[in-house]
């Protein structure tokens, strides 16, 4: 779309005209500005989507808010920038946003040639296929000759090409940049199947005209560790974003929730005392207020609370914790020690 091209040109202009060595770090810039700018997805229910009042809701949104809470002590000092898959990396590279929380998969290329760093994963995902029930397909290996709806500029686009190549099957992609347009095309039958990360497919299905008409195929064809992203070259900012995510996970492991966090301040556990800033040191090391982790948990809750609130079994998405359970409960969520 023209808009996309304009966007690139703007992004490039920043690269072209930004002068000399960087003076201030991202933390100083954010503090001087008074709010954090986070790049998010414009429309994936449960991960990031504005509700009917225009308030951003979702797992990625809450992750970004955790960073604002750590920096300002106020999770609402944040502005969201809705980005398409194609726009997201240039937006971060050209400093239009401070952090990208937009279900972005960590890959080698993105961390090297794109000049970005991924912090701790906030959702372990994998790519699947959504098909209409009436198609009668039981496995992704029966999709020979199928037309597949896919978002451009994603790892998904590459995985699905690899999958069909590996199994030596013909297929036709329909590549549309706006998720809303893509969904419309799929639900009206333009494609035989929609492929994306399984969590997103669940989200898309939940907004289908008739969700029960669609079924997820059993194959998960890729690993998609989704994590917030920052630019290369600002280690302090990387640490802040990384440890904000880990604080959410560590709080769940400690059993600290938004409801009991005030009582936990009186805990005798030295680990919890360090974590909540009762014993000072952690905040200073990050360049933040000593109450940074307390502020995150008080305002947003721990990872488990965020998960259940946005995508858990009691939401329309009905996602199990699965890989996203704590390591102590058979999942992969594992925070490094806070000491």
């Amino acid at each position, binding site marked *: 779309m023209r808009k996309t091209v304009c966007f690139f040109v703007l992004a490039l202009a920043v690269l072209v005209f930004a002068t000399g060595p960087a003076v201030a770090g991202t933390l100083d810039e954010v503090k001087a500005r008074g709010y954090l700018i986070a790049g998010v997805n414009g429309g994936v229910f449960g991960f990031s989507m504005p509700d009917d009042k225009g308030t951003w809701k979702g797992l990625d949104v809450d992750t970004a808010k955790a960073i604002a809470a750590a920096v300002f002590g106020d999770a609402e000092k944040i502005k969201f920038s809705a980005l398409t898959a194609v726009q997201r990396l240039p937006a971060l*590279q050209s400093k239009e946003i401070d952090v990208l929380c937009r279900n972005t998969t960590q890959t080698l290329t993105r961390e090297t040639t794109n*000049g970005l760093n991924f912090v701790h994963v906030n959702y372990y995902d994998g790519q699947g296929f959504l098909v209409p029930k009436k198609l009668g397909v039981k496995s992704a290996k029966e999709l020979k*000759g199928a037309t597949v709806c896919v978002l451009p500029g994603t790892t998904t686009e590459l995985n699905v090409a690899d999958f069909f190549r590996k199994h030596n099957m013909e297929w036709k992609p329909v590549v549309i940049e706006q998720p809303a347009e893509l969904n419309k095309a799929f639900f009206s039958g333009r494609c035989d199947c929609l492929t994306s990360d399984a969590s997103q497919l669940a989200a898309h299905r939940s907004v289908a005209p008739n969700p029960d008409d669609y079924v997820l195929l059993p194959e998960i064809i890729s690993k998609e560790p989704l994590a917030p992203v920052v630019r290369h070259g600002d280690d302090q900012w990387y640490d802040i974003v990384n440890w904000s995510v880990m604080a959410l996970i560590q709080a769940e492991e400690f059993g600290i929730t938004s409801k009991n966090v005030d009582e936990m301040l009186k805990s005798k556990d030295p680990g919890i005392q360090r974590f909540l800033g009762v014993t000072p040191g952690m905040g200073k090391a990050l360049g933040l207020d000593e109450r940074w982790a307390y502020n995150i948990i008080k305002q947003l809750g721990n990872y488990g609370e965020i998960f259940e609130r946005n995508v858990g079994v009691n939401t329309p998405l009905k996602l199990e914790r699965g890989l996203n359970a704590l390591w102590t409960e058979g999942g992969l969520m594992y925070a490094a020690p806070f000491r």
Partner: protein
Amino acid sequence: MANTGSSENVPFWFDPKKRSIGAQILALCMVGLLSWYLISNVLHNLEKQSIATGFGFLKKEAAFEIGESLISYSAADTYARALVVGALNTVKVAFIGIVLTIVLGTVIGIARLSKNWLVSRLAGAYIEVMQDIPVLLQLFFWYAVFYESLPAPRLALNPVPGVFLCNRGVMLPVLESHPAHFYILLAFVLGIVFSVYLKRWAKKRRDATGKPFPVFTLSAFMVLGLPIMVWLGFGMPVKMDVPRLSGFNFEGGTTLSPEFMALLMGLVLYTAAFVAEVVRAGIQSVGKGQREAAMSIGLKGGQVLTLVILPQALRVIVPPLTSQMLNLTKNSSLAVAIGYPDFVSVANTTINQTGQSIEGVALIMIVYLFFSLATSAFMNWYNRRVALVER
């Protein structure tokens, strides 16, 4: 240093010729310095963020699939080939779009001037409506029409034997390849060459003797008749590759995708409205007296149009028509919105997979610049020709 040895002994800064050369050198230096500054700044910033630079990525494996292609392409091919596929898709929709736009625009432009009240009002309404709705909305509309209103492949409409309509596109039968095709094509080309010579000869004869010659009838006979005779000579091969349902989709024949059809319809219907106005203005620019004079010397209706009105109208029509053709080509980049794999769409994906946006945007600019300059060059050549004919 002060004097340059000219006879009047004028200091060089008062010599207008030398002064203008100096100014140009100065301007050139400033442009050079500015671009050096910008380029080195970009490289510095990219290096600081450790983002890769250069066009080396073109040789790497693209690893993504493209929906439709004029040349063979698979995910195992390089980014360079993927971009060529995208560029050819742009050329395909732009070329077919331009031809259809000119035909439709001319018809509507002439209809706009019709003495029939209903015809001229209908043409007028078409022009107003189409010009006033943004082309992106029209694309969404046509795309939705295709996938919302047409049935699934298994319930495809079959209006004519061998032709299928469904939400996967329009499936058409194609001729199975046969050695006769080459000779039929040859006969067709021969027919065209013959017509060109015939036209020149007839013009020369008319200039010398004043006798007319039925060039058009004879040319039409040669261009169409020769291939048909060859076809008959080969025993009328008519074996068709007919599309048939297999699994999810149709196999065989050729498929026009809904994305292509929607893009083509949107662009043609939108641009034709502008072309119609251009054609109307061109025809109206020829004075009424010209037509009356032509009729008074006994020319027939068709001759009045082709010999008197059109040559003068074309002079007015061609330059704005060129800019409409360029508009159509550039608007084809809106294809991204409805998923037609044009050059911008493929380049966008390439940019995103490689992260090299500067190189990608530079390629987009170069390719569109090339398309536009090539179109302009052709139309300028044509414009010079019609301008000469007119005098």
